């Protein structure tokens, strides 16, 4: 199990949220949308220009900017850093 920011996951990778940090307003929005500890998140794809990423969580699709996804830490199976 490796812990890293959600923004570093590749398309198709799956992680489990361990913590959400950062600006209180953003954090409140994130948790309300279901980005809470224990939630399983799959990175579906990145936008063509590379920035917002599309996630699948709790059965729906959500997109986040990289600088927002940096505040979400997930644990991923795997050995690499």
């Amino acid at each position, binding site marked *: 199990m490796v812990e890293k920011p959600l923004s570093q996951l590749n398309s*198709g990778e799956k992680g489990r949220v361990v913590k959400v940090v950062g600006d209180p307003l953003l954090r409140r929005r994130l948790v309300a949308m279901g980005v809470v500890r224990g939630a399983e998140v*799959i990175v*579906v794809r990145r936008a063509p220009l590379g920035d917002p990423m599309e996630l*699948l969580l709790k059965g729906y699709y959500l997109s986040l900017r990289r600088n927002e996804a940096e505040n979400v830490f997930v644990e991923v199976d795997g050995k690499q850093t």
Partner: protein
Amino acid sequence: MDKWSLKIAGSYALALGALYVACGLLEILSRMGVSPFKIDRFIPADPFSGFASIVVGATYLYSVRALLTGREEGLPFLLGGVVLSTILGVTFILVAGAHWLDSWLEGGEFSLAEELRPEIWLFASSLPVAYFTLQWIRASGRPGSFPSRWLK
């Protein structure tokens, strides 16, 4: 979907995609005044609709490789191509209607040949593909018939 249907669909998509791209290019070229043919009655000189046609064509062509090797991964692009082709085709049909109304009000001329743009007859030629993709969506009512990467 059996392999042969996929291959046939792939060939059809190849032809359709190539036609869309060709028409799109011609529309752009004839705008720049360098069209090789004298066909401006049938191919309007409109770089933007030319671009749109090329995009539809490209979407069809995207499906070709997978389909010709009998893999279903091409089907989404086939469906996307049908959707885009419908949007474009229906728009031009509506616009033709508006032009007709305009000429009726103003007493100007209305040429059906000019209004029947390539986008319209290519849309008509896309209808078999629409039927085919509809069959596919119906058939995939069973679980797991499409290798959906994101669904557990």
